[in-house]
């Protein structure tokens, strides 16, 4: 049904992997430059959305079935939350990263890394979920 958009499809096929890489870059570069879990998640999600726009939602669902996105949604949120709990169990307050490693600075680093990962996963999963739901509404009128 999208035969005439061959160019678009080919271009995007080439584009999507770099976008994903870029997303990962943004994810882990957040400590130094602008970026972080949230932006990365959005970009990551955007890649899939782009894919879905061009190749159809069903194709995306084959790659990333709904239960996976749902699972990721929860995993992301819980990663963040449980990282805080870890701080709590290790003798600090909730979300205290200093206690995560022997050196507080390292602890902070780990903490932020984990937390950002959680944010990234959640946001990407959320974006994909929301889009999928909207896209799955077709045929109503």
């Amino acid at each position, binding site marked *: 049904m999208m035969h005439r958009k061959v160019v678009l499809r080919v271009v995007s096929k080439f584009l999507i992997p770099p976008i994903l890489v870029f997303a990962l870059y*943004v994810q882990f570069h*957040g*400590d*130094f*430059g*602008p*970026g*972080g*879990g*949230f*932006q990365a998640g*959005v*970009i990551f*999600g*955007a890649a899939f*959305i782009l894919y879905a726009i061009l190749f159809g939602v069903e194709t995306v669902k084959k790659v990333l079935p709904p239960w996976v996105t749902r699972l990721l*949604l929860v995993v*992301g*949120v819980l990663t*963040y*939350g449980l990282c*805080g709990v870890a701080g709590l169990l290790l003798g600090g307050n*909730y*979300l205290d*990263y200093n206690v995560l490693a022997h050196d*507080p*600075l390292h602890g*902070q*680093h780990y*903490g*932020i890394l984990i*937390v*950002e990962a*959680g*944010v990234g996963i*959640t*946001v990407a*999963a*959320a*974006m994909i*979920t*929301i*889009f999928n*739901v*909207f*896209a*799955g*509404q*077709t*045929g*109503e*009128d």
Partner: protein
Amino acid sequence: MLIMGVMAIAIARIRDLFAVSMLSGIFSLTAAAAYVVLDAVDVAFTEAAVGAGISTVLMLGTLALTTRQEKVTGGKSKGTAAFFVVAVTGAVLIYGTFDMPRYGDPIAPIHHHVAPRYLEKSFGEVGMPNVVTSVLASYRSFDTLGEVFVIFTAATGVLAILGRAGRRRREDEIADETVTARSDDASPDKDKETAS
């Protein structure tokens, strides 16, 4: 910013919702540009991705599902009343600006109470050059936790509102949801009512 002003008014006037959605995307993009010049790169990045990207996609998706054209209505009185409310609110805001610290003023209180610690000590305390990340993920990480839950709520909320369950294609959903076998007591009529 003047561009944004023009666009905002255009959004208010234009009735073609497709154009409005695109304009709102561009509006966000311009805002992102403004954030960059205001030294808020992180925010700009996010605004560009979210405001210009995701929101616009969602809007267009909604329009595809609903309608493109806003109806022309003669609600003059409503407009007047709304204008009055807006005028009063705006007046209060403008009134409030008079005692604000001047734009970019380095001696404004916000630059002297909480923020300095972030700028001066965060590298020693958190070890990140990007202060925004330090504050976001460490000093105020609880806010961010909340934020993550907000987006989580939105995603699951959209699932609950629009999810396939209970909609026209409910049957397929039931097919793959083996766990949640329908019980007999919830009458199918009622479900249909919800769906329609």
